[in-house]
């Protein structure tokens, strides 16, 4: 499997690896994927009082593309409002990382991880879960 330079860069120097306390009221946690499918992504966002995502962390079990996709979205969501983060599409992730067709599912997973993290945050704050 040959990877793009951007995938390799994110894989070798992953951004924002780690965990926040998932019980913190400002933290939204999304965990998507299945071990049996070969990838599990955990994405966490920390949202400020102004509704802007101050920080993000990830942990991923998966191939190089899955790790790169999650690393990339932690960078992208930072500084965005929760609503803006929800507009990130898997096609943008796949394009940025030049993912080959067999790895498109990694970008889909990353998009799902953002949605799951936001849903968790909104649930904590009693908001409805629609987009």
């Amino acid at each position: 499997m040959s990877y793009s330079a951007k995938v390799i860069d994110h894989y070798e120097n992953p951004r924002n690896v780690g965990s926040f306390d998932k019980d913190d009221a400002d933290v939204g946690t999304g965990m998507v994927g299945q071990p049996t499918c070969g990838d599990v992504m955990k994405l966490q966002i920390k949202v400020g009082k102004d509704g802007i995502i101050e920080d993000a962390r990830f942990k991923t079990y998966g191939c190089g593309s899955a790790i790169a996709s999650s690393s990339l979205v932690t960078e992208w969501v930072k500084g965005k409002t929760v609503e803006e983060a929800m507009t990130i599409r898997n096609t943008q992730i796949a394009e940025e990382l030049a993912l080959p067709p067999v790895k498109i599912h990694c970008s889909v997973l990353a998009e799902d991880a953002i949605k799951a993290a936001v849903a968790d945050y909104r649930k904590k704050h009693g908001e409805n879960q629609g987009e």
Partner: protein
Amino acid sequence: MKLPIYLDYAATTPVDPRVAEKMIPYLTANFGNPASRSHSFGWEAESAVEKAREQVADLVGADPKEIIWTSGATESDNLAIKGAAHFYGRDKGKHLITVKTEHKAVLDTMREMERQGYQVTYLDVRENGLIDLEAFKAALTPDTCLASVMLVNNEIGVIQPIAEIGALCREKGVIFHVDAAQAAGKVAIDLKNLPVDLMSFSAHKAYGPKGIGALYVRRKPRVRLEAEMHGGGHERGFRSGTLPTHQIVGMGEAFALAREEMAAENARIAGLRDRLLAGLSGIESAYVNGDLDARIPHNLNVSFAYVEGESLIMAIKDLAVSSGSACTSASLEPSYVLSALGRSDELAHSSIRFSLGRFTTEEEIDHAISLLTQKVAQLRDMSPLWEMAQAGIDLNTVQWAAH
């Protein structure tokens, strides 16, 4: 030490320089067609081909007349299974037996036989990768015309009890084929005393060139095959096509070297494998796949739990290893061989096959151990599964979100 380090000898081996040296004159000066009967160019080529046939036969305790040249073990498997099933299936019955952990060259040929109206039983293996003799015995029916079981598995290196399986086949008059592509030059094979009718060999797994292999076809009692390749009637009609003299000379020399050096080489490689195993034992939650005793010393297949295989291979790019077999590593499926052992998929996802060989050094093994120790730890720091396992969560009880 030269990087990357080659630890994928089960995929292919380099041609031994001593072998290459013997091959070269047959590309240039001695270029004759071994089938040319009317001049010395042909005679010389023919004599080189026959010498090589003896060298191959000698390694496995066969008569040279029992060796048929093919393009490799895949072709040998095809010729053996299709050729014998077509011949014996007419009278005996159209039932075939094989094992779920066989190489694709056997499994895909069996699928083709199913399309041709044959019934095939695919036997399970035990957790250690070895076949259950009772299950094999139970699978035999009056309609069974052929069974095919590999000697050494390409992914996990386990050695199947082919003498016992062959004896069961003999009792029932079933033709027994053995794929020995991964075995020749690594385990002693004596076809004089083994109840095996057909055996496939490959040169490039044993320091010979790619593109040449052989099929052993027993003469006493005589085993019949229907030819699958028609043409000039070469190889006594079993397999037509001009013989590639240089390739054949290479296979002969490679097998002759294996015969001389196998005992010493196996001992040296077993030492290196033990060193690798001891080194990797320092890594938590790492498991060896397949039986450790009934196994060639050249192979170590290890699952690193909570780490995904492809990302691990990417992390250890200084090591040329494979995840699953070379033929399936382009797909996203977990290895079917490890699945057959009953390994959970998440363990299968993180399995690495290390295969050691003639040119592997202690220094290379030590580098591999330190690199793996470091990278597995790094990837686990990044793995949500590892984090959950460390927190005492049983991953089997987690409800995973479908996607």
